[in-house]
Structures are given as structure tokens and as C-alpha cells.
């Protein structure tokens, strides 16, 4: 019963009895920790936004620990990765992407120099042991993630040194050996990892044995054999294919004599080879690629698959690149090559709905060369794996966890045939081990991270100004040798400064915008971190659903979603 008081006055704050929450027509604000696009794009599974958040607060070691929770080799990927994270970075919509790659490398090197401990514990003595074939980035990642999952790892490497293609195929100008050795060394020294060198599958150890002796087998042999090169007409008897030449050069520092060279292919191996040969004294190096060079209208699917920086440096160094072309025929003088006939080519959609490479008749021309080097990709060496290889000489992995048709056998990295980067191999290793660990515990496969990605349009860019991207030091073309690393270290100050450029896509910045700008006082600030990782709660008893908080959230962490609230909830 209402009792009307004198003059009809009201007692303070009584409006709280009136729940305006039921005014929301359809949507209510929700905290959504969407994937930052860098994270979504990272094959290794790093959450760059998360470790940048640590850096923003000046916690460098925490940033590294966050980073290596997914990728144990930041010193390596920070040098060799084509960094799709930067391509995806939302800062592009304001100025230029974050220099994630450079900061990652700095973090990796910092960890080595400071001797920070990897965030792992020694597995129990009787912990299940996983056999890993190959010590390339995939194998090393798998071994590391075994430790993170409480498993032991035993690596079988055919060569006398660990590292796989990191050692055999990547020139020290991109990945100096001391940096590689230091990071791999620290990783392999972790308790719970056993490394067997010179243990070649099919010769020193058999797959069937491993299947029985170990809880699971991860095959990470890499691609050690070049693909067959199809070209019309005759080929020289001394035809060298690219990977082979590269390895030879790594081991002996020598290339066959040639004045003018044509390289056929479009990957990092091809570019590395071109640059090394040019530096070695070859007058003219021509790369013939079916893909396109980057340009404003270039279809990403058509883009040449090399690290952009490497491509840029190659052009700086005078490599000639013929895009949208293929080698049709070799011009021979006896057993010697005197030229290559190249023809224009493009990937076009066929009537069957698939992409086809179409050569255009009448566009043929001849480039005079002394040597032609096919560098069109590699495939798995069959040793010890005969019955597992498919018709293209790859291992068939059927899911995201890299399972093969055989129980407890996983195939990761380049050997899957659908991979091409160090980061992908590292990601494969992590996922395969997570599946194995779950499997051993009798659990279902781990949930894939199906969070939506935060698009640039989801941010409120008003709150972010333009900031210049860090520019790493670089050796001038004239000073580039075969050993000295071309790109330099950005240093602590630049790394921390670069971190301030991160937009924290989809992550709460605790900027207070929602708390400050709610006309209905329906955002509650909490001292403790709430479950969703922010310091704010929505008081849906009063939220009218105006959407200001979502609109003004700088990072898109607040989004308007379908309302599920009922009064009294």
C-alpha cells in the first residue's frame, strides 16, 4: 500500500526499485573475447595480442612465456616466418601493421640471453613417451609440447645435428647458426626429451617398432626430396634441383659455375637460392614463377608464397622476377643449356569449378641462360615410410590433429604436403601432442578454438592514433655476405614502443569507456578480474540496451548480442 507523504517527496536512490532492464528490445551487451586477427592467422597458434598485452605493461618475461606457451622457437620464427599475423593485423586500417615479427625475434633472443626457463616441468619418470621422427621445427615443437602435456618425448633424427630444414635449407643470412643453435639447444636440454641423432627411419629404427615401444608416433620427416620437374624436350644431364644446390652450398660454400641462371619456382627456397647465387657472383638471376608479385590488385591466392621482406630484399639485390610464367622448354646446345623458353601462364577457374594453370599460346619467348634450376617444391623421402606415402609422395593427415589412417601415428609439418612454413609445422606439433595427450587420458579431442575473429570494423578507431612502425636495421646490399644476418635487432626500447601500437583487438583494455559512458549506470567495475577476463560486469537489471558501450569499446570486446536475460535472473 502506497502511503503518500507530505508534498510527495521521494527517498534517495529509490529508482533502483525500477528495473529498466526490461526496456531492452532485443540485444544486450556481451563481453566477447574474439580472436585477434594476428592470433587467428598464426599457424603456430600464438596469441600475439596476449603477449603484446604483457609487453604493454612492461612484463617482458611474461610476454615471452605467453609466446612460448604455443611456439617454443620465437628466435627462429622471429627470423624466418612469413608472418601472416602482420598481414592480418587490424592496424593496417589506421597506418601500418605491427612489427610482430621483429618483436618476436627480440623476445626469443632476450630469453636466450637472459636464460629464462621455458614454462614446462619435467614429466614423471613413468610418463608415456611419444616417438618423434625428425627434429625439424615440427618435431621440436611436438617434443616441447609433450612436456607441456606431461608426456616424455624421444626424437629420432637421421642427421648428425638437430634442426631439420632450419639448418639444411635456410641460409645463415636469414637464420644465423648461433641463434638457431642456442634456441634449439635450450629446448633439447629440457628434461624429458631424448634426442637420438643419426637414427634414420627404415635403417636405424623401424616404424613398427616405434608403434609398439611408444605411446604414439609423430612423423615429422620433412620433405627431403625434390619434386619431379616436367618440361618439354631434353634436360641437361647435370640438372641440379634447387634444394640440393642449397644444401650443397650450406655444406661446402660452392655453386656450379654459371653467368646467367634461371630459377623456376616460387617459394622461399627459390628466393633464398636466387639471392645466394647473385651474391656469389652470378651476373643475371631470373626467377620464373607462376604466381604474381604483390601489387594493389593482386589476388592473395595468386600471390607469390615467400616472406615479403625476402622478396623485397631480393628485388633490392637485383634479382629479376618474371611473374605469371612457366618454363616450357629448354634450349640446348648439345648437353648444355643455352636458354629457357618461357610462356605466360595464369591460374584460372575452369568449367569444372577448379583452378587450372593455363598457358597462353603465342607468348613464348627465350631467355638466354647458362643454367636452369628447378625449384618447384619438395616431397617426402620414402625411407621407412613406403606404405604410408600417397601418390604425391606425401603423408596423408586427415584432421587438424594430423592423424593418419594408422592408429596413434600422426604426420605433421611439410611431410603433410599441405604445409609450407616453419610456423605451420610448429602448430602441427602442438596440436598433434594435444590430441595424443587427450587420447591417452581417454578424453575427447581438445576443442578447436572456434571463437570469431575481430575484424577491423569491429574496433572503434577513434581511440587509436597513427604511430610509426619500427624500422629494423638492415645491412646495405653491398655489405651482404653469406654469413652476416641481413636484418638486425630492434632492441628493447623499440620492442616496447612497438607493443604500444597493438590495438588489443577483442581484448579488454580496462579503459573504463563502458563504465564511464553508460547513461544508465549499468556497468559495474570490479576490483577482481571477472570470469571473462575484464574488470566490468553488466548489470542487466538496469541496462536498457542502448549499445553505447559496444560502440565506444575501442577493441570490440563489448558486442551487442541476442538478449537472454529475464528479470530476476
Amino acid at each position: 500500500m502506497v502511503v503518500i507523504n507530505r508534498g510527495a517527496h521521494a527517498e534517495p536512490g529509490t529508482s533502483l526499485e525500477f528495473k529498466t532492464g526490461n526496456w531492452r528490445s532485443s540485444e544486450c551487451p556481451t563481453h566477447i573475447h574474439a580472436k585477434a586477427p594476428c592470433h587467428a592467422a598464426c599457424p603456430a597458434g600464438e596469441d600475439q595480442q596476449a603477449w603484446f598485452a604483457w609487453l604493454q605493461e612492461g612484463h617482458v618475461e611474461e610476454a615471452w612465456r605467453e609466446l612460448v606457451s604455443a611456439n617454443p622457437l620465437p628466435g627462429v620464427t622471429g627470423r624466418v616466418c612469413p608472418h601472416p599475423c602482420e598481414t592480418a593485423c587490424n592496424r593496417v586500417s589506421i597506418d601500418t601493421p605491427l612489427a610482430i615479427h621483429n618483436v618476436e625475434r627480440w623476445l626469443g633472443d632476450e630469453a636466450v640471453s637472459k636464460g629464462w626457463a621455458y614454462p614446462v616441468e619435467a614429466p614423471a619418470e613413468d610418463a608415456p613417451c611419444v616417438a618423434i621422427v625428425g627434429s625439424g621445427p615440427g618435431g621440436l615443437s611436438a617434443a616441447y609440447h609433450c612436456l607441456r602435456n606431461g608426456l616424455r618425448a624421444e626424437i629420432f633424427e637421421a642427421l648428425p645435428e638437430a634442426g631439420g630444414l632450419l639448418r639444411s635449407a635456410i641460409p645463415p643470412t636469414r637464420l644465423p647458426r648461433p641463434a638457431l643453435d642456442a634456441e634449439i639447444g635450450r629446448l633439447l636440454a629440457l628434461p624429458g626429451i631424448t634426442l637420438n641423432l643419426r637414427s634414420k627411419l627404415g635403417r636405424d629404427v623401424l616404424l613398427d617398432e616405434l608403434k609398439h615401444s611408444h605411446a604414439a608416433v609423430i612423423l615429422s620427416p620433412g620433405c627431403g626430396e625434390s619434386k619431379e620437374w616436367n618440361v618439354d624436350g631434353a634436360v641437361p644431364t647435370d640438372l641440379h634441383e634447387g634444394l640440393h644446390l642449397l644444401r650443397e652450398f650450406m655444406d661446402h660454400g660452392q655453386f656450379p659455375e654459371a653467368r646467367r641462371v634461371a630459377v623456376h619456382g616460387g617459394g622461399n627456397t627459390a628466393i633464398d637460392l636466387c639471392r645466394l647465387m647473385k651474391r656469389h657472383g652470378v651476373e643475371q638471376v631470373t626467377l620464373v614463377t607462376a604466381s604474381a608479385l604483390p601489387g594493389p590488385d593482386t589476388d592473395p591466392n595468386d600471390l607469390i608464397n615467400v616472406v615479403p621482406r625476402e622478396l623485397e630484399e631480393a628485388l633490392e639485390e637485383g634479382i629479376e622476377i618474371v611473374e605469371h610464367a612457366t618454363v616450357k622448354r629448354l634450349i640446348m646446345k648439345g648437353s648444355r643449356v643455352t636458354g629457357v623458353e618461357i610462356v605466360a601462364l595464369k591460374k584460372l577457374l575452369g568449367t569444372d569449378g577448379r583452378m587450372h594453370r593455363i598457358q597462353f599460346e603465342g607468348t613464348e619467348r627465350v631467355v638466354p641462360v647458362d643454367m636452369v634450376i628447378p625449384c618447384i617444391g619438395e616431397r617426402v623421402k620414402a625411407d621407412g615410410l613406403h606404405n604410408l606415402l600417397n601418390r604425391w609422395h606425401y603423408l596423408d593427415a586427415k584432421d587438424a590433429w594430423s592423424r593418419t589412417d594408422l592408429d596413434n601415428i600422426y604426420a605433421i609439418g611439410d611431410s603433410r604436403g599441405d604445409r609450407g612454413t616453419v610456423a605451420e609445422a610448429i602448430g602441427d606439433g602442438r596440436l598433434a601432442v594435444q590430441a595424443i595427450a587427450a587420447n591417452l587420458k581417454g578424453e575427447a579431442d581438445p576443442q578447436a578454438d572456434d571463437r570469431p575473429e575481430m575484424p577491423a570494423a569491429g574496433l572503434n578507431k577513434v581511440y587509436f592514433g597513427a604511430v610509426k612502425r619500427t624500422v629494423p636495421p638492415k645491412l646495405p646490399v653491398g655489405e651482404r655476405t653469406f654469413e652476416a644476418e641481413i636484418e638486425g635487432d630492434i632492441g628493447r626500447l623499440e620492442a616496447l614502443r612497438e607493443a604500444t601500437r597493438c590495438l588489443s583487438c577483442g581484448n579488454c583494455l580496462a579503459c573504463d569507456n563502458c563504465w564511464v559512458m553508460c547513461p544508465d549506470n549499468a556497468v559495474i567495475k570490479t576490483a577482481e578480474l571477472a570470469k571473462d577476463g575484464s574488470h566490468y560486469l553488466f548489470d542487466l537489471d538496469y541496462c536498457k540496451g542502448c549499445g553505447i558501450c559496444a560502440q565506444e569499446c575501442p577493441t570490440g570486446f563489448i558486442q551487442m548480442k541476442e538478449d537472454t536475460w529475464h528479470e530476476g535472473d
Partner: protein
Amino acid sequence: MTTTDNTKRVARLAELREKFGRHPVEPQEKHYQGGSQRDRQPRFCGLESGHRACQGCGEALAARLVMECAGPDVMVANATGCLEVFTTPWPQTAWQVPWIHSLFENSAAVASGMEAAMKAKGKNTKILAFGGDGGTYDIGFQALSGMLERYHNILYVCYDNEAYMNTGIQRSSSTPHAASTTTSPAGAERMGKRHLKKDLLSIIAAHHIPYSASASVAYPADLQRKVRYAMGIEGPTFLVVHSPCPLGWKHDSHVTIEVARRAVECGLFPVVEVERGAVANVMPIREVRPVADYLGMQGRFGHLMDPNDPRAVEELTHLQALADYNISHYNLRGEGEDPADTAGITLVARDRAAGES
């Protein structure tokens, strides 16, 4: 946390009671539950939730921001208008401070009386007077001018949403030129309001009071700084806060802040500070927007957006000229304070953290 805060509140109440000579009473448990998260907010909540403002109301936001840094030792005189109606539907009130509503046009005079009462009783409780643009620019203007002239120790805050919104969007002297309202509708003969927005701040400044300023809900930290500054001044101070009205301006409720921000960025609502009649400070616009960016978001200017209508083009050009005038008159173009100003500015404005301007 709970106990500390409750202890603080009880101590504060005791202090106030001491000051006002009241018999101590326990805090009313009903509305100060102490234990809830809501009661532990690290800010003073003078305007509570549960008020009946529209979704995305700029005025409700502005009033809340003002109260945060003004209260609790204040008393408010509120003119008739949306703010009054949506906060105090009897038997409820959203106010946590002493508050009185009398009439549309007398909040400045009622506040004068309250201030005189405080003086007579030797108390220094600050008096606030609130009014909308109708109650300030128009019907309450005389009372306001009198209050300023008599030099009462009052902070007058005008929540400027540029029309009589409470009665259904009729034009006021604060309505911008060419805006369509229910009493200045756009039609075949007329392009909305025929007259200009009154330059109230200059008129207020001509009273040579210690401090008068404009602010915008889009820049809450700036707004709150101005309130704190005014609170510290012994004498009359005046603040006009640009407060978008989604209903009257005809924009979506979620873009309230964005609309207000663009008003500042295009120069149509200059954010300035005036001390003793002289412009002391302005909020610089780093990147000046065309007025169309601001006007185009709002239905009240919809009739100006037809590039094929020469009348629309003329009015749009006129508004652009008015904005340009403001920019040159107040010298608004420039660097300085980050325009995207929030409470957590250091966390957000990465360019500033990076040392770039």
C-alpha cells in the same frame, strides 16, 4: 573491500550529520546494501540506475558524469524537463543528493535561494542548478542572468540537446540552424529552423563570472575536469554540456557519443573555457571533419543531404560556414589534448603513450 567501503560511507554520513547538526541515523539499508558490487563502485553515484531516460540518452549520461565529481555535499535545483521527469517519477527518485524541482524557468532562482539559505546558515554545501537548453537559453534565461549577476556560489549546468525534447522536439533558441523539429519542420517551403543557434556562452561570458565553459559527453574526462574546476570556485560558474538526444536528433541510440564527438570535430560545437569573460582555453581539433559527417548521422538534418536540391546544398554550405567561423573565431585547429579523451585515456591512446602527438 565491503567493510572498508561501508565504513567510509558511514563515516562520511556522520561527518555530514556533524556538519548539519542532525541526529545521527543509520544509513538506510534498503538502498545502501553495502555488500553488492554496485555499492562498491569507486565513484560517487549521485544519479542512480532505474531512471526512465531513453536508451542512449546523452543528458542522463552528462548528469551522471557531473554528479560523480560534484557530490555528495551538494544540493541540486533542477528545471522542468526530461532530466527532471525521467529521474523522479514519484514515489521514486534516482537522485542520491538533496534535489528539488520547482518549475521550468526558475532553477537558477531556486538555486539562488538555496545558496542564500546555505550562506545564512553558515554552511558551504555547493549548490548546483540544472536545466535543459529550453530552461536555460529560453524561458529560464532571465533567472540565470540574475543569478550570475548576484554572484551566487552556484554551478549552473545546462544540458544542451538543442530542442524542447520533453514536450516532443520543438525548436528552442539553441536548436541549430536548419534543423528540423516539430515546430520548425522541413517542408516544401522551409528548410527547418530559419534562425541561428544562440551563442549562449558568449552571453554568459559577458556577465564576467569567474568561469564558464562548454563541454561534451563525448569527452567525459574533459567534462569532469571542468566540473571539478568549477566546484572549486567560490562564485557563479556555468557549464553547457552538449548532450545528444537520440529521439530528437533522430540517430541510433548507440552512436550518442559518436554524434557528440563529430559535433566537436566539425567545429559546430566549440569546446571552450572562458574565465572572467575571456577565452582561456579551447579543445583543439586535430583533424577537422566536414559538417556533413556530423549532420549526416542525424535525421533532423536529413533534408540537407540531397545533393540535387540546391536549397539543401545552400543550407549545408551555410552550416559549414558557421563551423568554419567557430574554428577561426576560437582558433580551434591545432594539436594538444587528445580529442578521443576517456577516463582510461592512457590505456587507450597508444599514440600518446608512444610519445607521439
